[in-house]
């Protein structure tokens, strides 16, 4: 299982080093379904690389992952796009080159909740404010004519959410997978909304690379993207090894995994301007960002365009 994965390449440094003449590209991730293309790429795409070798660096939570990305300890990451936007806004040179997935977030609520308005006055958890989950929640409340002040919103580490729901500490949550599926599969919660119902083509996790990496290694970035996109397509085509790979990276029960895979898709991982601008609009409207980077500044489609058009 993933938790038993012991990497022997422990010394991760700022410099991209060479392994067997290939350039090592370090990509940070959290063990969630949203980073599945990375796992598949790492397992299946590795042999197709000519000049690079990717090394995945697992993190326990977003803040540490962002610390590593911001300081250049890794070359890129599959990360909540909002966090990358925020970092960019603060002056850190990052570029989003692809999505992590499409859709796949669900609003999980306890069995006694059947509509949004039932959540009034209840406690509801999101991973933190700078997330698509917060925006989805915002939209959901707006649809029901409610606002944040009608709920008690808490920011909670995702792994604690299923337990919190199960114990009735919260009445619902909205978070990356497979934490939503965990509660649903265990019959502790049910799906109130799918993200696509709330915000079509929502942008959630993205593959983000450091600007200096792209500038200095455009060819590497292109190779990376090529296999990344291929991995996404492989997953969506229900490739036979997907099950096994995902079990290796996320040590969760089979039924949980199956469920979360039902909600998510990985084809067409390009970040479109409209979707990005929707996101920006939300961020500004919700006061989460004052001066978000423009599409041109932040999104770099040059690689994905090359590899997809091929």
């Amino acid at each position, binding site marked *: 299982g993933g938790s038993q994965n012991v990497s022997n390449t422990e010394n991760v440094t700022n410099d991209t080093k060479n392994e067997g003449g290939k350039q090592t590209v370090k990509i940070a991730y959290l063990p969630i379904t949203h980073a599945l293309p990375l796992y598949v790429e790492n397992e299946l795409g590795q042999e197709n690389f000519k000049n690079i070798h990717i090394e995945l660096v697992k993190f326990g939570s*977003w*803040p540490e992952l*962002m*610390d590593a990305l*911001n*300081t250049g300890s890794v070359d890129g990451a599959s990360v909540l796009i909002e*966090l990358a936007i*925020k*970092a960019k806004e*603060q*002056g*850190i040179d990052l570029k989003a080159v692809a999505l992590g997935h499409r859709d796949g977030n669900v609003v999980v609520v306890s069995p006694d909740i059947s509509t949004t308005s039932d959540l009034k006055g209840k*406690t509801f*958890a999101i991973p*933190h*404010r*700078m997330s698509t989950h917060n925006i989805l929640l915002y939209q959901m409340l707006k649809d029901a004519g409610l606002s944040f002040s009608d709920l008690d*919103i*808490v*920011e*909670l*580490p995702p*792994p*604690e959410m299923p*337990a*919190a729901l*199960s*114990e009735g*500490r*919260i009445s619902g949550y909205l978070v990356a997978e497979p934490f939503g599926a965990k509660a649903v599969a265990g019959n502790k919660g049910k799906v109130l909304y799918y993200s696509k119902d709330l915000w079509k083509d929502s942008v959630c996790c993205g593959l983000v690379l450091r600007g200096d990496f792209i500038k200095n290694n455009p060819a590497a970035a292109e190779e990376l993207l090529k296999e990344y996109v291929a991995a996404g397509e492989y997953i969506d085509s229900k490739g036979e090894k997907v099950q096994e790979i995902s079990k290796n990276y996320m040590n969760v029960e089979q039924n949980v995994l199956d469920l979360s895979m039902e909600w998510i898709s990985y084809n067409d991982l390009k970040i479109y301007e409209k979707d990005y601008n929707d996101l920006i609009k939300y961020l500004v409207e919700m006061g989460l960002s004052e001066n978000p980077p423009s599409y041109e500044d932040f999104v770099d489609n040059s690689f994905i365009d090359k590899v997809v058009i091929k």
Partner: protein
Amino acid sequence: MSRLRKLINTLIGLVILLAVWQGIVLTGKYDTSLLPPPQKVLHGMGELIENGTLFTHITVSLYRFFAGYLSAVAAGIVLGLIFGWFNKLWGIFDPIVQVLRPISPIAWFPFIVLWFGIGDTPAIVIIFIAAFFPVLLSTVSAVSKVDQTYLKVAKNFGIKQPHILTKIIFPAAFPYIATGLHLALGTAWVFLVAGEMVGAQSGLGYLIIDARNNIRPDLVLAGIIFIGISGLILDRLIRLLENWVGKNWGIVPNERGI
């Protein structure tokens, strides 16, 4: 004179710290959006003070801290007195405590949420855990170190339980317990940040985590400074308690400063 000296020393220390910090920033080796210069942090601190959130954060944190710390003190002392007195019982619980003690409160997160939910309680529980073991262990060892003469005196003068515990053991052990309280205070305060990671929406620890999420290293540093200063003040306060104990218990005030 000595007060003035101390103030001057503190100021010199502060200046050195700021100079080193500014120096590192000036080398230009690190992006200022990752390592902000002092004035930016000062500005951030000002911001927090002005909009009044700092006050809320500090009061909330202090509330949680004292709730956790004081209940740990109460539980630790009571259990410590019992275990210290009933040696055999301690023989059984000692191994349990010794195995539980070295475990980071962070590791307990999943179970803390399971049992205590989110918000104030887990923060209080984590601070409780951090403070409980030092208090318990120092109380047990304090009781075991109580001068046998006092017990003999008590026996001689016909003092019976529970008075032996209240009139003799507890006061005799208290100076050592107070050292344990001091130690526990420091340890517990360090875990404030960890405690406020589980669903807290305010507090100094939350402030830091939130600043991290918003990639605002200036606010992280501001939070660090506030935590450091508050910790220092708490430390001085408990040192006053210790000195008071020393004075009223007939011991030379200890200068260990641990």
